[in-house]
């Protein structure tokens, strides 16, 4: 059996299990990752099978989790730490930005910091505040970090493998509302590069670029547009640092139109960077300005309003229409 259908959360669990199994230096750390298996059960059963010494319930202190993970990495370990929710990463932001991101350069390359920071992110699950945010741009902006987000179970499995093997710190954003989405995971496949984007639907009229939870929304939008006779290409970026501008460029040179979609606020977000770069690279190909669909410059709203805030099918199609109107 080469491929198996499983939920995205389970795929990450299996990937962590594979890593723990194959490398004694891999550690899992975080709040409630042990007996409970994490609040989303992503680490379910790992402590039982690998012991408290390798799957470590930590004190409730995010800076401490990342700071000690740095120390463990300096000792030769490969910690995979969990931040329980997106909005709770900020106590650790100092350690991530001032220490983790810069230490390799400060030591002129003499030491490596193979730390993976898993962050369940994004909205759509009706949560209380600080549990639905998309802070990826705050990390992609920092040199020394790599930032990725899978959109499917298959990618989740392999991207986690690659993140753990990476000698650079990787911020691994997990689309929490897709945790229960099932897809094929082929453990014997040879995965493509971690930071390469992938065309998940081919089209000719316009390119939708997205990552994480928004890839599914874009695929649905493309299917709906097809019924209206519009052919949309969907590119799953997979990586926000580095961003695979080459793949976006290839797509845009074909379709001549680009809409970038993410949950995070559009202001100074990933889409802003993509718009600027693609405008530079594809100025004479573009038939319309690059448009962005995303969150607003407002605190993430209470759950009863999140459907108004989050980009959905209709807002994506609205942007598609605006682009095609040029």
């Amino acid at each position, binding site marked *: 059996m080469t491929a198996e259908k499983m939920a995205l959360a389970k795929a990450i669990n299996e990937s962590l299990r594979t890593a723990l199994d194959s490398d004694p230096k891999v550690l899992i750390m975080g709040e409630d990752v042990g007996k409970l298996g994490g609040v989303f059960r992503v680490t379910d059963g790992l402590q039982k099978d690998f012991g408290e010494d390798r799957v470590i319930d930590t*004190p409730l202190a995010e800076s401490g989790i990342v700071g000690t993970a740095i120390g463990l*990495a300096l000792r*030769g370990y490969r910690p995979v730490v969990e931040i329980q929710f997106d909005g709770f990463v900020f106590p650790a932001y100092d*350690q991530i930005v*001032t220490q983790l991101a810069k230490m390799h350069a400060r030591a002129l390359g003499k030491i490596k910091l193979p730390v993976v920071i898993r962050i369940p992110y994004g909205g759509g699950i009706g949560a209380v505040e600080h549990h639905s945010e998309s802070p990826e741009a705050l990390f992609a902006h920092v040199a020394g970090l790599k930032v990725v987000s899978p959109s499917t179970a298959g990618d989740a499995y392999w991207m986690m493998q690659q993140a753990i093997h990476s000698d*650079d710190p990787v911020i691994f954003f997990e689309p929490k509302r897709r945790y229960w989405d099932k897809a094929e995971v082929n453990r014997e496949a040879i995965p493509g590069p971690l930071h390469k984007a992938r065309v998940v639907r081919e089209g000719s009229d316009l390119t939708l670029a997205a990552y994480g939870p928004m890839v599914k929304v874009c695929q649905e939008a493309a299917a709906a547009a097809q019924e209206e006779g519009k052919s949309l290409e969907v590119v799953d970026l997979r990586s926000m640092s580095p961003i695979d501008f080459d793949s976006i460029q290839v797509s845009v040179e074909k379709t001549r139109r680009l809409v970038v979609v993410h949950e995070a606020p559009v202001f100074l977000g990933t889409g802003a960077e993509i718009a600027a770069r693609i405008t530079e690279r594809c100025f004479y190909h573009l038939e319309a300005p690059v448009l962005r669909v995303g969150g607003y410059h407002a605190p993430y709203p209470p759950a009863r309003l999140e459907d108004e805030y989050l980009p959905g099918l209709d807002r994506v199609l609205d942007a598609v229409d605006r682009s095609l109107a040029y």
Partner: protein
Amino acid sequence: MTVESTAARKPRRSAGSKRTAAKKPPGAQPDLVQLLTPEGKRVKNGEFDAYVADITPEELRGLYRDMVLTRRFDAEATALQRQGELGLWASLLGQEAAQIGSGRATREDDYVFPTYREHGVAWCRGVDPANLLGMFRGVNNGGWDPNSNNFHLYTIVIGSQTLHATGYAMGVAKDGADSAVIAYFGDGASSQGDVAESFTFSAVYNAPVVFFCQNNQWAISEPTERQTRVPLYQRAQGYGFPGVRVDGNDVLACLAVTKWALERARRGEGPTLVEAYTYRMGAHTTSDDPTKYRADEEREAWEAKDPILRLRTYLEASNHADEGFFAELETESEALGKRVREVVRAMPDPDRFAIFENVYADGHALVDEERAQFAAYQASFADEGEGK
């Protein structure tokens, strides 16, 4: 009843009287471990004498030499900053005993996590003094291989390294090694959340780490009273591990107490907090002006407790060192100063492409792209000669 009204009924001290409760002269502190008095007299200590019982005259002279050379190196660096050769220097003047005593207590396989002022500890670990100067000259942001002397990079963000030390110590314990880890920080850092978290993590995981706090009384312009209402070493009690205050100007006591703490760590007894009670005789850095916030009398009172002077008095009184030793050391000291000057002045600026080096271990497309753009930009000056 509001919180405010509750607070208003509490008796308050006026700002001018806040020194009365916590601050006593260090000699009067009942908790201060001291083996050498400021007058250079060896005093007995039932608990800690054992850790220096077999110290030889040669080793005592070695401690003295370390302190003298460290002070000389430090003075040279301060002078080099004044001459424009360094951008900044953080002097350790006055803290030589705390650093040499604790640094000499470490074993080769132990691991040290310093702040940016641990020049004496770096000396003990065998780090080339020239390495320390590169960072302050502005040719790199660290620059040495931490693993070649088990001496981590200087950490400028206050207190961050205590968590790295704790994590490293957790790794040591996982490896089943009997090495220990020592984290340096100051009285100012004791207010940082990372330091509190490192106490928590090290305690619950029983990590083999020694927290060595040099309480030099001043965090730039803020006195220790602005950081704490209790003596800092007492904080350990709340976390469930021992805390000890040692005379930070007594190299012998610092050696003994740190050895004790490191041995506890090796035996699997977990973390220890050592508060080395000392004094920052100089400015915070060469950019600072202590005359704005502290009185000369305070510094003068601490001059009488000078760490180097008291060991010299002891060495002379006990006939452990003769004139020849001191004269030879003076020559060695001059030679070190000369070498430091030469090394710094000869230190080349880094290649401009160093900006893009080692940003990532496995590379990054954006860094590659920007390096190429930078190279093309530089090359555009080729006609004007080498792109200077």
